[in-house]
Structures are given as structure tokens and as C-alpha cells.
């Protein structure tokens, strides 16, 4: 079997298992209150890490500052103006595209 298909199958099976692990581990029982409180703080911690890594992450790790940051700033400005989600992400994309066009 070729390296391509081995990687497709192994990565696919590993990802399916990783995604299923949490829902299987916590099947039919509620975690204790302190663990539940921690779980409810997992989303903001992960979302914030996704903002940082998606806005600043380089292709091979490390930082890369580029038009994404201008786009994120435009999205944040739209959020402060209480714009709906569609407007927020459109503002980010259009701003980044314009910065690339000019830059």
C-alpha cells in the first residue's frame, strides 16, 4: 500500500478516535461539579487559543504577522459596533483581501 493511502487511513482512524473519546468517556454520567465547572471554561480557553493561532500562526509553527491581523482588527471593530456574525467575518475577509491587494 502506498504512503498516501497509509497516511489517509491512519490519520483518519486516529482523528475519528480522538473526536469520539470525550463523548464516550463521559457517556451517561455527569462529571462532578468542579470538573463540570472546568469543562464549562474549556470553550473560552480553546476559542481564545484558536483566535491567536489562526491569526498569528506561521505555516510551520511560530508566528507570521500578515494581513490576517488587519482582518481580525476589522472583525473586532465590527463586533464592538454590535454587527451580526456574517458582517464580522465578511469585514475580516474583505479587509485582509484589500491589505493583500495594496501590500
Amino acid at each position: 500500500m502506498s504512503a498516501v493511502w497509509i497516511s489517509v487511513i491512519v490519520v483518519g482512524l486516529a482523528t475519528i478516535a480522538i473526536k469520539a473519546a470525550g463523548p464516550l468517556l463521559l457517556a451517561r454520567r455527569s462529571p462532578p461539579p468542579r470538573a463540570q465547572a472546568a469543562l464549562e471554561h474549556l470553550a473560552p480557553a480553546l476559542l481564545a487559543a484558536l483566535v491567536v493561532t489562526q491569526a498569528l500562526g506561521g505555516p510551520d509553527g511560530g508566528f507570521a504577522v500578515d494581513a490576517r491581523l488587519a482582518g481580525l482588527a476589522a472583525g473586532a471593530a465590527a463586533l464592538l459596533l454590535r454587527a451580526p456574525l456574517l458582517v464580522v467575518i465578511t469585514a475580516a475577509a474583505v479587509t485582509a483581501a484589500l491589505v493583500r491587494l495594496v501590500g
Partner: protein
Amino acid sequence: MARRTVRRLPDAQAPEPGRTYLDGVRAAAPIGVAALAFGVSFGVLARAAGMGRVAPVVMSVTTFAGSAQFAVASILGAGGGLVTAIVAAVLLNLRYGPIGLSAATAFEGPWWRRVLTAQMIVDESWAVAQRDDGRIDRHLLIGAGLLLLVCWTAGTAIGAFAGDLVADPESLGLDAAFPALFLALLWPQVRERSRLLAALGGAAIALVLMPFTGPGVPIVAASLACLIGARRQP
């Protein structure tokens, strides 16, 4: 596009009024456009990297996680070796461990149904399925996940079979749509002080680790910031 309503829930057990699968599809629709475009670029890149036409499409259905798939294609294409490609992809996808845990209480039914439903988790579907109390709405997750799966896979097929016809998503600024999406979904959650602290902690951990680790590790490590919640439990 259904705008997320910001409301204060009196306690974490309060039920969310009925959201449907269609609400999930609607919530993910704008980001579906970006997923389609990036699917096209994955298809193009994977084919150029020697993965052929069918394997990238199979990978988009089964792995269904953009960053890991891009990593495999670029490592194999650069002659980086099978083991390197697999390790990089698994590291990138380890974040779905804590993400799956945070979504776990939303799942119901027998084990096989949990396993199937869990496959609808990607960063964006999980993000749009957030309720303001930090839990996950299962209907939103499944609706959003299915739409994104269709867009991502269709994009991959277009890229792998007819890739020369399509514009580069980065020139359209679509890569900037993702951090803005996550910021917008984080926004209503951090009105509460302890969740704001968890968000700041997660961002700080990711920033500190990014120069030193491969991609993927900073997000997994950032999940430790959720312990702020356990400490503050009365």
C-alpha cells in the same frame, strides 16, 4: 444568518429553547463558503503533492479536519516521510480531545451514535454550537457539522479534479475569516469574569508556546486554562 442571542441563564442547567438542525446549517452557512474555498485549495495542493485525486476526497470525508490534512499533503509533497506526516496530523488533531470533552454532555444515545455524532465536531461547527453557558447545542453542532462536511468535501473534489479553474482563497482574505469567527463566538462568553480569565489564560498559553512547539500543541495546552473554572467553583 441567525444572530446569536445573548441572554443570561440563571443557572447552567437551564434548557436552551429548541434549536433545530436547520439552525445549525444557517449558523455555519457563512463559514461554509470559506470551507468550500479551502477545500478546493486542499484538493489542488494534495494533487500537486502526489496524493492523486481520490485519496484527498476520502481524507476529507474521514479525517474532516483542515489543518491536519494540509499538514499531511505538504509533508508528503516535500518528501518529509510517512511517519512525520502522521505524527504532525495527529498532534494537530489532539485538540479534538479537549474539544470533545467540552461537548460531551450534549451527546446522547448508544455508543455508536456518540461516535458518529462526534465526527461532526470540527473547530467551526463546535464554535457555532456554543451556548452562552459554555455548553454545546447538539442540534446546532450536527447541522453545522454536516454543512461543513459537505462544503469541505465538495471543495476538495473540485480542487482535485478541476483545480486549475479556481482563485486562491488567501487572495480573497478567507483565511482571516476564521480568527474573526472564533473571536465573534468567544465574545458573548467572556461577559462573565471567570470565563474571561479562562480565555485570557488560553490565549497567553498559546502565545507563549507557539514559537517553541509544532502547530497543534499550543491549542491543546491552552485547554489547561479551564482549571480557572474549577478553582472558582463555590
